[in-house]
């Protein structure tokens, strides 16, 4: 490809001509808007973006982004994305998915894509409910949840999506919230910058079937108290500096600062530490504030890069690979 001057885009360039059909007030609008804003900033030609999705409300995402897009089948977006990225590593591949799509019907593919470390960005819209099928419990719904299919309460124990991803050897995990405008942009940029599978859980509100699912964490008045905004190299403090996280043996504990305890006594966030990541991925409200931002990133070769290195190596070793040699190779004999 020839070297073109970097293209200047605005958010508008990434808006497609299709009418958006999410419910009014859906959290998806905010996620789409932040993503379009970030896409415009990345300096990547628009034609090199590919949005891939499975099935669900979130999976309509590709139709609304003016780039290449593929709305596939339920749970299988990671498989299509793997085929795209392995065959065309120069493309910037993004997956929009939901808690049902990525963790229920597609849990298998999500896990395998993460362990392979295919260089894609996964935006998991977690609203703890099935929206498109009108309100059944999902694999992230809380135990005992009463839904259309669980009138006496759900018996399922939910996944912690980031712990799931870490268990699948993910090299990048992060969390954000649909309405946290700035934080979400930061996370999307970091996800893009990471080489490998970037797994981003986004708390998203389904105002029709599970309205207010995250309110107890994210309401303006309480979010400082109940969210832990992480920064690499910085101590883990929250509640306006009144509280922090310490380690007691291998277990994290919430401590009140003051009385001799300062931020310097708290755990310091290290994105590259997989053991710390394991602790953070398990921290959940109400025992703990919920970690937000980049929880873990580490460098590991990507599947697509290695896939193409093997091809290049094979081609270099056999530069004149011809069909004739292939067909006439092996034991042949001549009939006169």
């Amino acid at each position: 490809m020839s070297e073109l001057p970097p293209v200047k885009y605005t958010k508008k360039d990434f808006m497609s001509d299709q009418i958006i059909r999410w419910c009014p007030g859906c959290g998806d609008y905010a996620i789409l808007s932040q993503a379009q804003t970030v896409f415009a900033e990345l300096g990547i030609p628009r034609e090199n973006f590919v949005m891939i999705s499975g099935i669900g409300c979130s999976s309509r995402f590709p139709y609304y982004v003016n780039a290449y897009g593929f709305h596939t089948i339920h749970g299988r977006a990671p498989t299509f994305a793997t085929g795209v990225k392995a065959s065309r590593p120069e493309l910037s591949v993004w997956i929009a998915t939901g808690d049902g799509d990525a963790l229920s019907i597609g849990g298998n593919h999500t896990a395998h894509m993460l362990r392979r470390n295919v260089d894609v960005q996964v935006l998991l819209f977690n609203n703890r409910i099935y929206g498109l099928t009108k309100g059944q419990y999902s694999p992230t719904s809380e135990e005992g949840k009463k839904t259309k299919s669980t009138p006496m309460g759900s018996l399922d124990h939910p996944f912690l999506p980031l712990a799931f991803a870490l268990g699948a050897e993910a090299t990048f995990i992060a969390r954000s919230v649909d309405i946290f405008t700035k934080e979400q942009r930061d996370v999307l940029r970091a996800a893009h910058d990471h080489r490998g599978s970037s797994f981003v859980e986004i708390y998203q509100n389904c105002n029709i079937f599970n309205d207010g699912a995250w309110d107890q964490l994210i309401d303006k008045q309480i979010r400082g108290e109940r969210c832990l905004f992480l920064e690499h190299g910085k101590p883990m403090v929250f509640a306006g500096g009144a509280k922090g996280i310490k380690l007691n043996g291998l277990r994290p504990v919430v401590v009140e600062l003051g009385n001799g305890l300062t931020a310097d006594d708290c755990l310091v966030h290290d994105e590259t530490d997989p053991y710390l990541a394991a602790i953070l991925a398990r921290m959940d409200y109400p025992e703990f504030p919920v970690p937000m931002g980049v929880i873990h990133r580490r460098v590991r070769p990507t599947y697509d890069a290695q896939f193409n290195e093997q091809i290049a190596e094979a081609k270099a070793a056999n530069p004149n690979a011809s069909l004739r040699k292939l067909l006439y190779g092996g034991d042949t004999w001549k009939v006169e």
Partner: protein
Amino acid sequence: MKPVQSLDSVVIRFAGDSGDGMQVIGSQFTNTTAMVGNDLATFPDFPAEIRAPAGTLAGVSGFQLHFSSSDIFTPGDAPEVLVAMNPAALKANIRDLKKGGLVVVNVEKFIPREFEKAGITTNPLEDGSLDEWRVVPIEMGRLSREAVTGLDLGTKEIDRTKNFFALGLCYWLYNRPLETTVKWVESKFKEPYREANLRALRAGHAYAETIELFESKYEVPPARLTPGVYRNIMGNQATALGLAAAAHKSGVPVFLGSYPITPASDILHQLSGYKAHNVVTFQAEDEIAAIGAAIGASFSGSIGVCTTSGPGMALKAEAIGLAVMTELPLVIIDVQRGGPSTGLPTKTEQSDLMQAMYGRNGEAPVCVLAASTPVDCFEMAFEACRIAVTSMCPVILLTDGYLANGSEPWRLPDPDAIPDIPVHFRTDPEGFLAYKRDPDTFARDWVRPGTPGLEHRIGGIEKQENTGNVNYEPLNHERMCKIRAEKIAKIVVPDLEVYGDEEDLLIVGWGSTFGAIRSAVDLARSRGIRVGHAHLRHMNPMPKNTGDVLRRARRVLVPEMNLGQLVRILRAEYLIDCISLPKIQGQAFKVGEIFDAIYRTQDNEAAK
């Protein structure tokens, strides 16, 4: 020197425990026979278990080879020679052996402990049950042991050389040179196994020359094959080469997404070594991921291919529907095996025709092809890729276990004479609509992501005609269903050819029954019965003249390795009451079975 008797053709079967190396000596005998210039056809028959308990019927592995000085089409109905390494192998195979045929047995295994494992009560070598055959008992174990004396080998390793002893013996019996196998052993084994196998091979050869058990040796002169360069090829190998040829001739990478499954895995193995030929392989976590990745690659500008078998086809159904809806090129190769469910994984069957034709939700027409011989797998795999990119549609290629593992000599095509597969990726944004079609093929444009100005979205929701936008309008849906059907119907396929005389009786076959049908038709015609043979390779769309051909015949007989699937399609499409000849035993048709059916049809006619 013993006298040499000339024969036109021989069918030999090697049978033993699955760990006895029967497939190895079978393919060695085959390669040597190919180099000698005989026409040949082979079929291996092995159990699903990798190593079933030694000595049991479940563990018997066999390899049958038919070689001839004239044209042949099948591995043969009944062997004239059976090499049986133990009582179970004898018991499982003896009923197939021609009366008066030769049985070479490894006599050391004919002891009470082995009889018990094989489920027999008396020694068949002594109880008169083998009186109809010529039995040659040989102490293969002891003789191989003696041959390898002095080499640094354990008891088990010594025991493993006896298959080469048996091979050497058979080489003598059919006057075959040892060179091909000697070269293979030298390249394949390290010392001391190399030396051990070679000594056992030569010992078997020398032993046959010395003993008085064989009254003569035999010779099958070279066949009068069309001049050219030949190699022996199995169906799965030919399929892999056909896909590689498509990558060369299209200039577009072939991307194989596959999940290991019997009997298709060998295609994945072979293609994984073809990276330099622009064929790349991805072993997925499951059958669905395999096709998802293949479709993703097609979307990105590769020819996406999947190799699988019946159970994998079932899992891929939804994704095939997506490829129908998004109108992307895709090739799915179904190496059929016995079903339903896990069924008979290592046995052959043709019972996925209906699944290939109709096994999806919604109106989801795809192109369906069927290869008729191991060599034909090359041409049909290439053809599948050509149609997929020309018509922008999924193509299912049906082969089966019999073709996949069977082999025959292949007169190699001139690679320069294989036509190119023209591929055009659209780059012009002017007037671009994602679902605008070529008026002849109805194919939409293929656009690689990364092309400026052509950004567009596709997906599984119904498309508006031309624009490709999401659309739920009733009449648009009906129109799009008809367009997708017509696109497949528009695929140009060659006319159905008829061999022989079809006026009285026409045999219509598809897939791997080709050899048995053609042989039976030849046999019938040599006896004055008027019969014709038409063989379908394009199942959807069928050749334009299919109805005419069927109507020209007074009766149509359809042999299939299922309970009558093609026959239903022919009845439905052409309103012709074809006669079904089903066989569903995990085994290919014997020539005799089809000949008998032809003969019976004659009788019925005479009786009317």
